[in-house]
């Protein structure tokens, strides 16, 4: 079976799974309000702590956090849903590459992350009264898609790890989301973090993309747009590569031990 057919079938499955989890009506009742309330909560906290200038910083940071809400937790969890359905041995037995299925069976979550972040950004432009040109809006949309993609790659890597401990999938995704919020400059500038931890921020997804987004939306100091975008892309690709290796290692070890569906 060709790579393209496997990817297309998995992506199709992912969409079906997403709409069974969130039918459009439920999405607007249960997910969109979460985005709005998250922006309101952190916006009020920022207004209280630092006034209008800090509010601008935090509201754009909330766009980055929306990708965690939309992409990370579902991606980590849904990797283990395959295991819960007892279909991992069937995937391994099939002629297609099971790793391709794992990597692409959550693609809807990537787009959910991008959609969540786009909604937050749209609200942010209203809250902050931003006056963006069409080119800036398109640029921001591209950055949002990039942020969601790199977060998705992190979700895949974490998902491949929690295949061994599926009961801890929510713990893993929540801790990852809090860590990203903490270290990527979402609400606290990286420069304000303890010096020893700042290098960690530079190798995490979102840090570089968020800098570019702030530059674009708020006119924050130029972080070196090309270099920052390249860094965000490279970090995403490295995470994707690690996820591939981790899935392959899990499948090989589990086949040897005969524990494909016993974790």
């Amino acid at each position: 079976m060709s790579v393209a057919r496997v990817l297309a079938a998995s992506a199709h499955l992912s969409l079906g799974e997403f709409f069974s989890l969130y039918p459009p009506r439920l999405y607007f009742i249960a997910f969109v309000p979460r985005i709005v309330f998250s922006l309101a909560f952190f916006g009020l906290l920022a207004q209280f702590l630092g006034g209008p200038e800090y509010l601008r910083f935090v509201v754009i940071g909330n766009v980055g956090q929306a990708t965690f809400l939309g992409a990370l937790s579902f991606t980590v969890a849904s990797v283990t849903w395959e295991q819960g359905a007892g279909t991992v041995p069937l995937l391994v037995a099939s002629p297609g590459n099971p790793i391709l299925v794992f990597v692409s069976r959550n693609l809807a979550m990537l787009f959910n992350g991008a959609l969540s972040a786009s909604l937050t950004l749209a609200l942010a432009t209203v809250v902050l009264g931003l006056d963006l040109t069409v080119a800036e809006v398109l640029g921001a949309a591209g950055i949002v898609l990039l942020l969601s993609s790199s977060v998705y790659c992190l979700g895949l890597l974490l998902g491949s790890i929690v295949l061994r401990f599926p009961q801890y999938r929510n713990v893993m995704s929540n801790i990852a989301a809090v860590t990203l919020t903490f270290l990527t400059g979402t609400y606290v500038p990286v420069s304000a973090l303890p010096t020893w931890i700042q290098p960690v921020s530079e190798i995490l997804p979102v840090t570089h993309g968020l800098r570019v987004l702030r530059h674009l939306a708020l006119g924050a100091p130029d972080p070196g747009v090309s270099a920052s975008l390249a860094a965000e892309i490279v970090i995403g690709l490295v995470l994707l590569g690690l996820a591939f290796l981790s899935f392959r290692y899990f499948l090989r070890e589990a086949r040897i031990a005969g524990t494909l569906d016993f974790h």
Partner: protein
Amino acid sequence: MNATLAWFARVVGASVRVELSKGLHAQLILGVLIGPVSSAIYILMARQLGRTDATVYVVLAPMMLGMWGTAITTSGEAVASERGEGTLELLIAAPAPAALVAIGKILTTTTESLLAVPLTLIIAVALGMPLAIEHPGHFAVALAALTLSTAAVGLLFASVFVLARSTRLFQNVIGLPLWILSGVAFPLALLPDSIRPLSALVALSWNAAVLRASATALGPWWWFGLGAAIVLSVVYFVLGARLFVGVERRVRVDGSLSTF
């Protein structure tokens, strides 16, 4: 009457034992760890702006949010996991009131989530924004009231979740409006005038006010605030229990439990 109470106590006790037997399960790790780690974010937000005067907000808010958040998540997960394992029908069909089983689970996780309190205070010290508690006795009483409201809100949501198929989706969205209305992380004065009166109906807003006052300066309203938190908790508790019993009766009469 005494025999009934003893039976109820045995049911709650059995539920507590089952919950404790799970040990350091995923839900507990989440509840205990996420609050203190989140507090590091809130503390750094204030510290980098030199807002040491906001210590009482940024240290206590994530702790309280962690406790209420754990209660709401636990009540949703308890119902969702019983439903997923196909035991919700058995639980409802059993002669023991299902509400008591829920109370046992929620009491256990609420008590366990108190572990977040010392962890949060330690993180505040480590990040250079220690919280000096001026009235430790009052603080302990306020913490007990917070524990009560946490258990009560857990029971209230558990009863609602029995009727909801997508509990996990709703439990994720319910928290944030409550955190905003409670003014747990910022003064209520920042809320628009039109919604501010609603805060008085959220026990957490009173819990937050009396906890903050216990750490800083007690006002003449402290006992009133404590009383309001306790009264609202009792109202939640009674409402949750009645709702649970009503839902239980309804689904037993019309056999509709598995249709939700």
